[in-house]
């Protein structure tokens, strides 16, 4: 038997292995090998020394310290759980506020792009369906497919006034907001109207345009105090 094998067997016997044949073989080797004899003696004595060393013990207070530590840990866990719940809700509120803000922003941009919030135009959009506004309804009748006057961005910058839609596709500039001097100066009124027509908001023939201008001037004049409405020409 080699020393390495003998030492391995020795460990096995320390662990309680009982094999008479191997035991006899090991004893024979140890009896012949001084090195292994020394090894077996030292190993046996050192391990028995270890097992004989007094064991330490904890006092009764230890149990109370464990109880206290458990109580503290559970309290801390509860606080942590509550904290995480609050944090989760705060996060949800913050996310909700962010989404709401984004929606408002998108709506604002959409409105601005649609021209409803165009700061360059002094015109505002109202609906005669909701408000009873005396209006010159025939200013521009929107034919199918034509650009809509309801888009304030298309209203000439010089033509201040309230652009009114009657809800049925007709739009008009309400009197009182007509360009200054429009009534006194038919040429200026005509220029304003021309600027509208030049933008091809309403495709009209020159005759129709002249007729429309005439009717518009008459309407405006009829609104002046002491003036009787002039019947429109057919």
């Amino acid at each position, binding site marked *: 038997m080699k020393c390495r094998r003998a030492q391995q067997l020795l*460990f096995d016997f320390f662990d309680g292995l009982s094999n008479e044949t191997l035991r006899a073989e090991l004893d024979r080797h140890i009896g012949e090998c001084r090195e292994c004899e020394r090894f077996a003696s030292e190993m046996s*004595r050192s*391990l028995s020394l270890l097992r004989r060393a*007094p064991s330490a013990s904890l006092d009764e207070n230890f149990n109370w310290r464990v109880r206290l530590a458990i109580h503290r840990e559970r309290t801390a866990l509860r606080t942590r759980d509550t904290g995480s719940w609050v944090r989760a809700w705060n996060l949800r509120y913050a996310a909700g506020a962010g989404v709401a803000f984004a929606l408002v922003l998108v709506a604002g941009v959409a409105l601005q792009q649609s021209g409803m919030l165009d700061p360059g135009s002094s015109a505002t959009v109202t609906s005669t369906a909701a408000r009873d506004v005396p209006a010159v309804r025939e200013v521009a009748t929107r034919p199918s497919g034509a650009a809509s006057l309801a888009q304030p961005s298309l209203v000439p910058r010089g033509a201040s006034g309230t652009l009114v839609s009657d809800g049925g596709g007709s739009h008009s500039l309400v009197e009182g907001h007509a360009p200054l001097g429009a009534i006194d100066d038919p040429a200026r009124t005509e220029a304003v109207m021309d600027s509208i027509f030049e933008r091809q908001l309403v495709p009209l023939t020159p005759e129709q345009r002249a007729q429309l201008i005439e009717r518009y001037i008459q309407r405006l004049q009829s609104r002046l105090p002491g003036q009787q409405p002039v019947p429109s020409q057919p």
Partner: protein
Amino acid sequence: MLTDTSRDRARWKDLTDEELMLKVQGGETDCYDVLVERYKNRLFNYLLRLTGNRDEAEEFAQEALVKAYIHAEKYKTIAKFSTWLYTIATNLVRNRVRSRSRAPQIFSLWTRVFGDGDDERVVDIPDDSQRSPEEAINDNELSEIISAAIQKIPEKYRTSFVLREVNEMSYEEIAAVTGLKLGTVRSRINRARNHFRQLIAPVLEKGIDF
């Protein structure tokens, strides 16, 4: 006359660890006291041998018992409670060792017996040949020598060695606690035994027969 609590406690003492843990999981948390009482000294001795420091060992024992209670719902009865508890304690020590950059604390007696260097085998204890072994070395000194020697065993061998030689666990249980294969556990324990033998040999050579 026994109160309900006293009667319960008497009854709980007859239950196995696993049965007690099931009760703890079921809400009878007072049962845990019985487990603490059962394991505190065994766990403390294991940790004392492992760390070589009484305060640290007590701190680890407390932490392990608290952790076992807090995570009681994770315990499954397929494993022995002792194995589970020792695994928690071993991991606590392992994590502490990893996070610690300084070397483990060496007892003053270590220097007396084994010197400072790893290779030193010089026994420097006073000549006590005129005294009996009992007089030459008392229980406290013996405990310190053993602790110091165990601290000199490489950390990776130490855990398995202490579980085997101090706590008398089976190889299977040690494998479960350490997460090592059975063959590795066996080989580490034997290596640790050899280290321990070499470390204690100078004390034995001095003629102190235990």
